[in-house]
């Protein structure tokens, strides 16, 4: 009985302030020393929820205000997502307003339970949407605009070269032909080709390096190289 009277008095006070257009100077800062209005007790909530279907704005205001702690509590859980806490609290508040407006008293669940889901859902939807925007790039994204106002779109520069598929195949064939041709050379000639063009380890050595390794002069390596390449070309021509 006392709780009912207390709620009635609070609602009346709310309506008087509302009617007169007066604002209380109770602005609470997130993380500030001031505390937010305390959550409603089960009994208080029941009394207010009975009046909710009438669309009473004072009832809605109280239900929202007295669940604001829940918004801050849930928003803080997402503090490490890169979105600042003020934004998270705003998004959570939107979730709470949605919750109070869509709450069905016949479902027999606590408003706080339903509101928590709505607040969390609102924040998660926002984060998901934000992440999507960050990782997605549109094909129609303008990269540049010329003097005539023509846009260069991402789709304009994307594409595959005509020989993308055949190029790799041809390279494979060339490699096989070269290996076959190399078999026709003697060991020293093979060694020179492998070292000079990095056929085994991908490291191309200079004529000087190869000359030092084999104990011959660089000019001799140069002459040998020309001769070997000529021969390889001949061998490959024969195979084609």
């Amino acid at each position: 009985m006392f709780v009912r009277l207390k709620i009635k008095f609070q609602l009346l006070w709310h309506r008087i302030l509302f009617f007169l257009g007066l604002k209380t100077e109770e602005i609470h800062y997130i993380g500030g020393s001031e505390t937010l209005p305390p959550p409603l007790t089960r009994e208080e909530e029941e009394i207010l929820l009975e009046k909710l279907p009438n669309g009473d704005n004072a009832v809605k205001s109280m239900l929202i205000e007295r669940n604001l702690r829940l918004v801050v509590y849930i928003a803080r859980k997402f503090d490490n997502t890169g979105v600042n806490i003020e934004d998270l609290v705003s998004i959570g508040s939107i979730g709470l307003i949605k919750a109070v407006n869509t709450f069905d008293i016949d479902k027999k669940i606590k408003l706080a339970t339903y509101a928590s889901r709505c607040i969390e859902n609102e924040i998660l939807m926002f984060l998901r949407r934000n992440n999507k925007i960050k990782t997605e790039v549109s094909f129609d994204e303008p990269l540049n605009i010329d003097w005539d106002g023509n846009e260069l779109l991402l789709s304009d520069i994307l594409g595959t070269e005509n020989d993308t598929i055949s190029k790799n195949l041809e390279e494979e064939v060339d490699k096989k032909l070269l290996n076959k041709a190399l078999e026709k050379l003697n060991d020293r000639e093979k060694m020179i080709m492998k070292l000079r063009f990095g056929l085994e380890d991908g490291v191309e050595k200079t004529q000087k390096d190869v000359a030092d390794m084999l104990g011959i002069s660089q000019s001799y390596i140069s002459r040998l190289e020309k001769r070997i390449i000529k021969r390889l070309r001949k061998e490959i021509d024969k195979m084609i």
Partner: protein
Amino acid sequence: MSRVNQKTKICVMCGDEKVEGIIIQSGFICDKCEYEIIHTEVGDEKYPFFIQRMKKLWLKNA
């Protein structure tokens, strides 16, 4: 008997003077904006606007 007129309040969302709405943390949201908030999804164009305006309920200088 003269009827006392209900005072208008400035909505923190649209900035218009309205009579009906909800009061949260001393900030007033008119019925029209409240309806709009409820029917706005996170991907809607107006959503970032509501996020910014909602801060007025919490921070004096927002």
